[in-house]
């Protein structure tokens, strides 16, 4: 292995870990702020470090500190299997984290003839990895509920178990129709497949090529992540907190954070399989490389507009009403970030100028395109996470038998029919 290969592996692994772990506080914050904005409230905006409140993200770190410093309490009635009781949240968390590691964040880098994957785990069977590891996550829920020796927790675990058998089949079958369409189990090749156009004008995204399978996949992944409208395992109106009733402090936090990592992973999988992954619609990586100057000039025009819009929005919203005497340091924060964003924009403009007109190095350009693709991936990821959150604050919860009806009576036959049609079309096209 050359030094560039080692660098790329280390960078993509760091990127994957950061994307999975650092998004937890951001997602918790997003969930709280989006929920409050949807309900015409404000949400957490007070906690700050030296006056920097970042719109309230600091609150999430304060929450983590609080959960870490809480008393570790073990229910005295749990006599057998205490290690499994402790281990269960870790299973959920680690499974979600590992499943995220098979997602490609950018196209394969070509460094001096070496093809290097920008993927934390550089494997070419990512779909199988996701299906294998992703399904383990629910074991943590079932073990945790079962080992709690508590009727609510046991009911929650039973519900999780019944749900897993009703959504795993449609999930696997819808993924199977994607595998048939894309003719691969490699996430990166799947993204490549989605770069062209379908029917002449639509981007060849999975949602346009396989609409039914895409919808089934999205529904099944909502169920897999235990998010609304499928939060049957922890319905607080019937079974308190469900499987995590007896879990306190950091054990609870593991379940809680695991839910957000799972949501992030599900978003990443949906984006990669259905919404074109890290690619811009219509443009393949080769197109961007051959027309690099045009691409760079477009970004150079769009970037300042984007920064200008963001600064305007920040100046309008990161302040208090005029009637209040003190703004708690928001004016200073706004000024600091205005300058920071302008400096960042200027630096990026100069880098783009250099790459577009002075440097002719393909290596630098392809690295730059990889960075842009990571940015597009993160943007799509956050948009889909926002969709997850908005759905949670829009829909009521399905009843536990309704989930099973949906899974067995509707999604399973639909996905079987879809596989049948897909197979006929694919075989017919190959004749």
């Amino acid at each position, binding site marked *: 292995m050359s030094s560039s290969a080692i660098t790329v592996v280390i960078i993509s692994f760091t990127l994957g870990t950061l994307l999975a772990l650092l998004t937890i506080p951001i997602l918790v914050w997003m969930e709280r702020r*989006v929920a409050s*904005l*949807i*309900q*015409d*409230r*404000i949400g957490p905006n007070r906690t700050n470090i030296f006056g920097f409140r970042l719109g309230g993200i600091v609150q999430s770190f304060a929450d983590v500190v609080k959960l870490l410093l809480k008393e570790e309490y073990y229910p005295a009635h749990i006599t057998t299997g205490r290690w499994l009781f402790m281990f269960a949240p870790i299973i959920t968390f680690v499974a979600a984290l590992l499943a995220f590691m098979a997602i490609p964040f950018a196209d394969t880098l070509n460094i001096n003839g070496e093809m290097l994957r920008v993927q934390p785990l550089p494997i070419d069977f990512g779909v199988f990895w996701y299906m294998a590891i992703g399904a383990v996550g629910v074991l943590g829920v079932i073990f945790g509920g079962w080992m709690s020796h508590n009727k609510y927790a046991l009911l929650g675990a039973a519900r999780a178990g019944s749900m897993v058998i009703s959504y795993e089949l449609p999930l696997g079958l819808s993924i199977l129709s994607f595998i048939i369409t894309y003719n691969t189990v490699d996430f990166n090749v799947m993204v490549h497949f989605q770069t062209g156009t379908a029917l002449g004008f639509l981007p060849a995204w999975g949602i346009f090529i396989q609409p039914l399978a895409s*919808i089934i996949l999205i529904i099944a992944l909502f169920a897999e992540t235990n998010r609304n409208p499928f939060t049957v395992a922890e319905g607080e109106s019937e079974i308190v907190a469900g499987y995590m009733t007896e879990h306190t402090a950091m054990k609870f936090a593991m379940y809680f954070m695991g839910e957000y990592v799972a949501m992030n992973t599900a978003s990443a999988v949906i984006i990669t399989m259905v919404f074109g992954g890290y690619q811009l619609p219509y443009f393949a990586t080769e197109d961007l490389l051959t027309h690099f100057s045009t691409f760079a000039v477009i970004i150079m025009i769009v970037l300042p507009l984007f920064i200008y819009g963001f600064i305007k*929005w920040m100046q*309008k*919203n990161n*302040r*208090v*009403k005029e*009637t*209040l*005497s*003190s703004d708690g340091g928001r004016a200073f924060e706004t000024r600091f970030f205005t300058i920071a964003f302008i400096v960042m924009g200027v630096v990026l403009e100069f880098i783009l100028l250099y790459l577009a007109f002075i440097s002719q190095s393909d290596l630098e350009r392809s690295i730059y395109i990889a960075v842009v693709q990571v940015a597009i991936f993160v943007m799509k990821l956050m948009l889909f996470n926002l969709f997850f959150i*908005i*759905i949670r*604050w*829009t*829909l009521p919860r399905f009843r536990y038998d309704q989930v099973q009806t949906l899974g067995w009576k509707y999604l399973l036959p639909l996905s079987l029919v879809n596989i049948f049609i897909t197979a006929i079309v694919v075989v017919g096209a190959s004749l």
Partner: protein
Amino acid sequence: MSQNIKVTKRPTYTLKHALYLPAIAAGVKVTFKHFFKNISDINAVATLRYPEEQPTDITQRYRGLHRLTHRQDGSVACVACFMCATACPSNCIFIEAEERDDGVDEKRPKSFFLDTLECVFCGYCVEACPCDAIRMDTGIFSLTGNKREDFVMDKEQLLSHKGVFSEELSRARF
């Protein structure tokens, strides 16, 4: 007989309802509208920014923290009749009476303790008082302290509270 029966036409269960996805889209449209409206102007949200922004909608009838009223000469209007303590459903008023030798009245409270941790702010003491000596018109809705004893109001504290809506003096004892 049949003309009295009103037949309500039930909504027909169409494919659109069975699909469930159009309903989700309609719901997301509503929530997203709220989200977008509020994210583009956070200061338009009606929430009170509490410690900096104080409520302005406290009315005359609002039952705030108690106070003891004064007479014209500045002495306490209370005659220590124990009516309020008797009416109190949570038994949070503790009065000790003493004889009043300045010729203004016969009795006055030697001590008057009101435990606000026990108080349910029902206003029965105000209703029961024959001398208009105890009132809840201070407009104070928030009381903080570091220990339990801070919440037990004594006579001096209760006399020091100011009414914000009506005159300071008792209207029954002059």
